[in-house]
């Protein structure tokens, strides 16, 4: 029996996933989570074989939750449900040892097969996602530029970013300016939008 944890913030989709997996003889849903920051605690409590995580969740995104699981519960394999609109996420997912990366609109059979294969230790990656990731290219931003742009995306001011990341305001402005120029944005907002669409943030 494969013990599955499901983390999805949209109630209807979460219920549908639970209903779908409950129909499978070899699967058991052991936890349903609606926030990313609750995934680790729940996983430590129920010890699932596979965690099915939505990529966008309140509290903590699916990939960050997968990173926590990989560090604290390496036996639990993660499968992330994503959209094709942010292909750059595949690179991040592979870095945080995500074993499965499937588009949300794939047929139900793909999800159940994917969970079984991941439970067997295989890696499941949608070819469409690989193609989209290769088209988009890897992020041109350095780790620090990504960090600063991500902080800016939360809507805080330059002075607050500087305090948060222990940098001077001039350095923050430099990083932002580099990031804007590298992603080809017209301004900070445009750079955030481009980077988000590509999955680089």
């Amino acid at each position: 029996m494969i013990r599955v944890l499901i983390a999805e913030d949209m109630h209807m989709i979460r219920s549908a996933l639970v209903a779908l997996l409950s129909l499978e003889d070899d699967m058991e849903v052991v936890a349903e989570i609606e926030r990313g920051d609750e995934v680790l605690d729940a996983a430590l409590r129920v010890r699932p074989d596979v965690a099915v995580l939505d990529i966008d969740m309140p509290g903590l995104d699916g990939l960050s939750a997968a990173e926590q699981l990989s560090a604290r519960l390496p036996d639990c394999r993660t499968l992330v449900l994503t959209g094709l609109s942010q292909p750059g996420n595949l690179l991040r997912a592979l870095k945080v040892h995500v074993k499965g990366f499937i588009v949300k609109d794939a047929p139900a059979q793909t999800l159940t097969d994917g969970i079984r294969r991941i439970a067997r230790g295989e890696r499941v990656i949608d070819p469409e996602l690989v193609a989209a990731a290769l088209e988009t290219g890897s992020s041109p931003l350095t780790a620090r530029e990504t960090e600063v742009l991500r902080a800016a995306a939360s809507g805080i001011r330059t002075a607050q970013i500087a305090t948060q990341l222990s940098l001077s305001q001039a350095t923050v402005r430099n990083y932002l300016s580099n990031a804007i120029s590298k992603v080809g944005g017209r301004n900070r907002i445009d750079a955030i939008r481009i980077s988000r669409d590509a999955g680089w943030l």
Partner: protein
Amino acid sequence: MRGLADLWRSDRAVRLAPVGAVTCSALLPLVQVGLAFSYVGNGVGTGLWSIAATAAYLPLHLRHIWYAARARRTPLGGWPLAVMAVVILGATPLAGNMWPRAYTALVVSSLLILPAPWSYLGCVALVAAAAPVAHALGLSWAAAPWLTFSVLCGSVALLMLVWLAAALTRLQTAREALAQRAVMQERRRIDDDLRHSLGSALESIAARGDRAATKAAGGEPADAAQELTWLADASRRTLAEARRRVRGYRQPSLRTELETAAALLTAAGIVTRLDLPRAGIPDTIAPQQRGALRATVTRLLREGHTRACTITATDLDGRVLLEVRADGTVETIEVPA
């Protein structure tokens, strides 16, 4: 050289060309002023007249050059040209025997402002008059013909500069127009493409949906279920088709694709090395070869056992041979030039 080439290709060269033409047009009269003071037979009086006359006509002349170098017609150019002619010709008896050299400005402005054939006639007359006028003002017959030569060459050089700057501006405008037309054509092509492929598929899906609704309402659940199953399959096929088409519109460079492939494989825990030829690789890759490369990368990402991978691109007389070597297995993809 690369920096110079970049500058030449850039819009900056187009913006600077009229400024260069105006600067060169201003330099010649300034030399003229110097000669009015220092040349044999000239003095302070001729120098001062030369300064005054140059100050009067030069702004008008530079205005003509500025508009012409930007490929624009000078607004109200006739009156300033008339004033220039009066000033230059009127200063002739007062500004020294080298003053006929200033006819260069009159020749250039005439050609830029006056319509043919009057402009040509005026220019020939001015060039021809330079030597006799200079002789009449005291220049020897040995030196005077050089003045005609100087006016002729100076006029040709300035006109070439103005023509070059104007040509650059026209080229830039034409390039922008071409780019806009290309964008319009591409939009139209995509529009036609989508209408003929995805449009018809979506219409078919809508029709099936209506049919399924009718059957469900008419108490035929089995037929309605069959229609809905078909509808779901057709929707997925249409979605896949839409993605394929969007991918077809994007043309990432081969280098970007290879570098991203290496980054993805490395992130998946496969030690990956990318060897690219120093001579560079083609910018694009045909869809078939791109598909083969993506299939290989997907397979390597899915296989859990691969530990090391080397992607080598070899240049073979314009063609590029991509070799993906992973744990003893080798896959070769040939990218035509």
